[in-house]
C-alpha cells in the first residue's frame, strides 16, 4: 500500500503544479498587453526614438517567440517545452533565457529566503514552545504579545521602517543592494561577509514578520500537548524537565509545524517579491516583480512554476519524512 500512497501523492503533486501552471499560463494572456511592443516602446522612450517599422519588428519577434500561434497550441508547446526543461526566452530581456535569469537570481533568493525561513522557524518554534511551557520564565510569555503584533505587520512595512531607523538614521547597515559597490562576486570570505551585511535588514524584516506565526502555532500546539497523558506520565516518572521539554514536548508539538514549513517557503518567496524590490536585491522576487510589471510571460511562467514546484516537492518531502519523525503515522501499513 505504501507504493500506492506514493503514486497517489506524486499524482497530486503533478496535479497541483499542472493546474497552477495552467492558470498562470492563461492569466497574462487574457490582457491586451503586448510585452514585446512594450519593450520596444521602452527602448524607444529611453533612447528618444521610435523606429518607424516598429510593428514589423514586433511581428518578427512574435513569430520568433511563437506568440503568433493559436493560444492553445502555444500552451501545448510551452508545456512540452517545460517537460524538456526548456522554459523559453525572456521576452523583455531577449537573448536571455528564462532559465538563465532564474539561475542568476536564485542564489540570492536561496540565501535570503531559505535562511530567514529556517531561522524564523527555529527561533519561532523555540519561543512558542517556551511560552507554553509552564516552567519557563515569565518574560518569554510576555514576548508573545509583541510577536503576535509583528506577525500582523507586512514584511514590506517592517522593511520600510528598518531602512528608516537602522540604515537612514543610525547608519548601522547598508540601505540596499546585494553587496558593496565595486566588489565583484566571488567565493572569498570578504565577499560573503559583505553580502551578508547587506542581507541583514531584509532578513530581519522577513524574520520579524514570520516569527510570530511559528511562535503562536507552536504555543497552541504546546498547550494542547501539555494536557496529554504521556507528558503527565513523564513528569510523574520524575524525568528531568529538560528531557521532558525536548523529548516529549517539542518533538511532538513540532510535527504539525513542519507541514507548515513547506507552505511557508512558498509564501516567503512571495513576500520576498516586495522585500527584494524594496531593498533592490537581484533575487527571484525582484525578477518576478519586474517581469509582472513588464508582462514578460515566460519569466512569469518560469518563476511561478519554479516556486510552485518547490512548494509541491517540499510538501511531498515533508509527507515522506513525517513518519520518520512521528512513529504513530504509518501510511496504510498493512
Amino acid at each position, binding site marked *: 500500500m505504501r507504493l500506492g500512497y506514493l503514486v497517489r501523492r506524486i499524482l497530486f503533486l503533478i496535479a497541483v503544479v499542472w493546474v497552477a501552471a495552467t492558470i498562470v499560463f492563461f492569466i497574462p494572456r487574457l490582457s491586451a498587453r503586448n510585452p514585446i511592443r512594450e519593450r520596444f516602446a521602452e527602448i524607444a522612450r529611453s*533612447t528618444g*526614438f521610435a523606429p518607424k517599422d516598429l510593428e514589423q519588428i514586433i511581428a518578427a519577434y512574435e513569430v520568433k517567440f511563437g506568440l503568433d500561434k493559436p493560444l492553445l497550441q502555444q500552451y501545448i508547446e510551452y508545456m512540452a517545452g517545460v517537460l524538456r526543461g526548456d522554459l523559453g526566452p525572456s521576452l523583455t530581456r531577449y537573448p536571455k533565457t528564462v532559465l538563465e535569469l532564474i539561475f542568476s537570481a536564485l542564489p540570492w533568493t536561496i540565501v535570503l529566503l531559505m535562511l530567514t525561513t529556517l531561522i524564523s522557524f527555529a527561533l519561532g518554534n523555540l519561543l512558542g514552545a517556551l511560552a507554553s511551557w509552564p516552567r519557563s520564565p515569565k518574560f518569554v510569555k510576555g514576548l508573545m504579545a509583541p510577536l503576535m503584533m509583528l506577525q500582523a505587520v507586512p514584511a514590506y512595512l517592517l522593511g520600510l521602517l528598518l531602512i528608516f531607523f537602522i540604515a537612514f538614521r543610525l*547608519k548601522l547597515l547598508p540601505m540596499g543592494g546585494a553587496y558593496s559597490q*565595486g566588489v*565583484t*562576486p566571488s567565493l572569498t570570505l570578504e565577499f560573503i561577509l559583505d553580502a551578508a551585511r547587506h542581507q541583514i535588514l531584509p532578513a530581519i524584516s522577513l524574520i520579524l514578520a514570520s516569527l510570530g506565526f511559528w511562535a503562536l502555532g507552536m504555543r497552541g500546539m504546546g498547550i494542547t500537548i501539555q494536557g496529554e497523558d504521556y507528558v503527565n506520565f513523564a513528569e510523574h516518572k520524575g524525568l528531568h524537565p529538560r528531557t521532558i521539554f525536548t523529548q516529549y514536548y517539542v518533538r511532538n508539538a513540532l510535527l504539525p509545524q513542519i507541514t507548515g514549513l513547506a507552505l511557508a517557503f512558498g509564501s516567503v518567496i512571495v513576500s520576498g517579491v516586495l522585500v527584494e524590490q524594496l531593498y*533592490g536585491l537581484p533575487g527571484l522576487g525582484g525578477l518576478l516583480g*519586474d517581469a509582472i510589471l513588464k508582462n514578460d510571460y515566460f519569466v512569469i511562467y518560469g518563476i511561478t512554476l519554479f516556486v510552485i514546484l518547490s512548494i509541491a516537492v517540499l510538501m511531498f518531502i515533508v509527507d515522506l519524512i513525517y513518519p520518520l519523525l512521528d512513529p504513530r503515522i504509518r501510511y496504510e501499513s498493512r
Partner: protein
Amino acid sequence: MTKNKITRRQLLRLSALAGTGAVIAACAPATPAAPAAPAAEQPAQPAAPAAEATPTPAAEAPQIPEVPRNRTVIMGWGASDFDNIGVTSPFAAGHNHQNFNSSLWDPLYYWAAFSDTVYPWLAAGDPEYNADFTEVTIKLRDGIEWSDGTPITSKDVVFTVNTWRDNDKLDYHSRVAPYVKEAVAVDDKTVKIIFKQPSPRFVFDVLTAHFDTGRPIVPAHVLEKQADVTAFPGGLDMPHSGPYNIVSWTNNQKIFDLREDWWAIKTGFQPVPEAKRVIMQRIGDDMGVVAQRVVNNELDTALDFRNDIIANILKQNPKVTTHTGQNEPHGYLDWWPNALWMNLEIEPFSDVRVRRAINRAVNRDQIDEVVYGGAKVSTIYPFPLYPPLQKFADSPGVQALVEKYQPRKFDLEESAKLMEEAGYKKNADGLWEKDGKTVPAQISGFAGIHADIVPVLAEMLRQAGFDTGEGPDFSPEAYNNMAQGRPGLYMFGHGASLRDPFAVFELFNTKPTGNVAGSNNFSRYNNPEFEKLVLEMAKYPAGDPKFDELAVQAMEFYYKDVINVPIIQWLHRIAYNQTYWVNWPTETNVGEGYNGAFWHWTGPRVIAALKPAG
C-alpha cells in the same frame, strides 16, 4: 532551415560565436557551478581583462585589479537596465546606451549643449555639405582604431550608415532610409554620403552624439560577419572604440575600467582620464534611499532627483553640489519638454474645443508653486528654451501668436464654455458628459519621474470636470498605449528640437520624414497644409530668414489646433558629490559645455573631465 544540416551562414555564425562570443557562455549562468569560459579561447586582447562577468556569487570569478576609491566614480542607476547583461553592440536588439554603455562607443561628432559646440571626434573636421545639401563629405581622424587594434576606417562608417538604411530592424532605419541614397568610401579616411533630397541636418541629427540621440560608428569587421546583427549581443569583449572596457557585469552592478590603449590617449588627442574605474550601481525604486546614499558618499552621482530631495541632499552634505550649486533650481534645462499628448483622431479629442478646454484647465502657476517649489518650470512651448530656441520664442512673430492664443491662460469659465459649445454637460459627479460618455482623461505618466506632477495635473483636470478615472497610470504599458493611440492623456517628454524648431514640427507631421523622434507623432495630427509647410522647411538650414518665416507659420498651427498641451520643461537635478571627484559640469564651470547627465551619449565626456578631489 533544416535541422540536421548546418548551413554556411550558421557555420559562420558559429565560428563568430567561438571567436568573439565566448563571453556569452561566461555570462550565461545556465550552469552555475561551471567555471567561467576559459580565457584562452578569447581573442588576444592584452589590455582588456578576461571576461569574468559571473552573475552568480557561486561561480569563481578572476579578481579584477584593485582601484583606489578616489580613482573610482560610482554612479547610481535604475534597476531594470542591469538585466540585459552582455548586450553591448549598438545594433543589438535591447541595446541601451544609458547604463554607461555609451563609454564603449565613439561617435563621429559630439555636441555640447551649453556651449552649442560640435566637437569632431572620430571625424577630422566639420562635415562638408555641397551647396544644395544633397551630399556630405566626412574626413576621419588619423590613428583611430578599435580596441582589438584594427584601424577605424571609412569602411566602418559606410557599413554603419548603409546598414541603417537597409536593415529595418534597426532603430535608426527610418531616420536614414528616407534620406540616404548611399554612403561610399572615397578612400580609407574619407566618406561621402549621397542624399535623396536636401538634408542640411543629417550629420547633426544622426552622426552627432547629443543627449540620447545620434549614434556611434560600429565595427564593420565584427558585425558584417553576423547573419542577424540585431540578434548578436556583442558581449563584454566586443571590439569597440570608446575609452572603457566592461570588466564585470552582474545584475547588481557594472564595472568599467579605463582602457589605456584607447586611440585618443595613444594619439594624444585626449588627456588620460583620471577616472580609472566607473561603477554603475543598481539602485532600488526608493529615491529617498538613493539620496541618502549620495549623502553618505556611497554614490558620486545618480540619476536626477525631484525638487525637494535635491535640496535636502545639499542640506545634509555640503560636499554635494548641483548644476546651479546651492541655488534654486538645482538643475539645468533638459532637452525633454513634457506635454499632455492625446490622439487627435479619436473622440472626443478630435474636437479642438475639448483640447482647448483641457489647456485652459491647466494652472501652470500652481504647478510651478506646488510641484517645483516656485521654480519657473512650466512652459507653453514644445521645445527646450536653449539659447537659439529662446531667441525664436522671443521673436515678434511667436510673441504675437502667444498674445493671440494665450496658451498660458488658466480659465475654468472659458474651459467650461468650450465644453458646453462642444455639447457637453456636467453630470452628477461634476464631470463633463456627452451621450453618456465622459472625457477619457486618465493621465498616464512614467513611474518615478512623473509621480509628482501627474497626480497634481490629474486633480486640476478633474476639478475642471474631466474624468481622470481611477487616478494616474504609471504602468510600463503607458508609452505603448500612447503609441497605439489609445484613449487617455499621456504625459510624455519628447526630445526633438535642440538648435532650431524644425525637429518638433516634423514630430507633429503625419508623414515622418525622419527626425529625432522618429515616427513619434503620437498626436496623429493630420493637416496637409502643415505637412507642406514642414516639407518646405526641411530644405533650409537654421538661420535662413525663409526658415524663420515658415517656422512662425508652423507655430500658429501648434497653438491654433492644440496639437498637444505643453506642461513643463524638464530640469535635470543631478547631485554631484565632490568628496572624491571635482570638476563636475556646472553653471559656473561650463568646461566644454556638456550637460551633466552621465547616462546620455555625452556621459563619457562628463566623466573624462572629472578630477580627483584634494
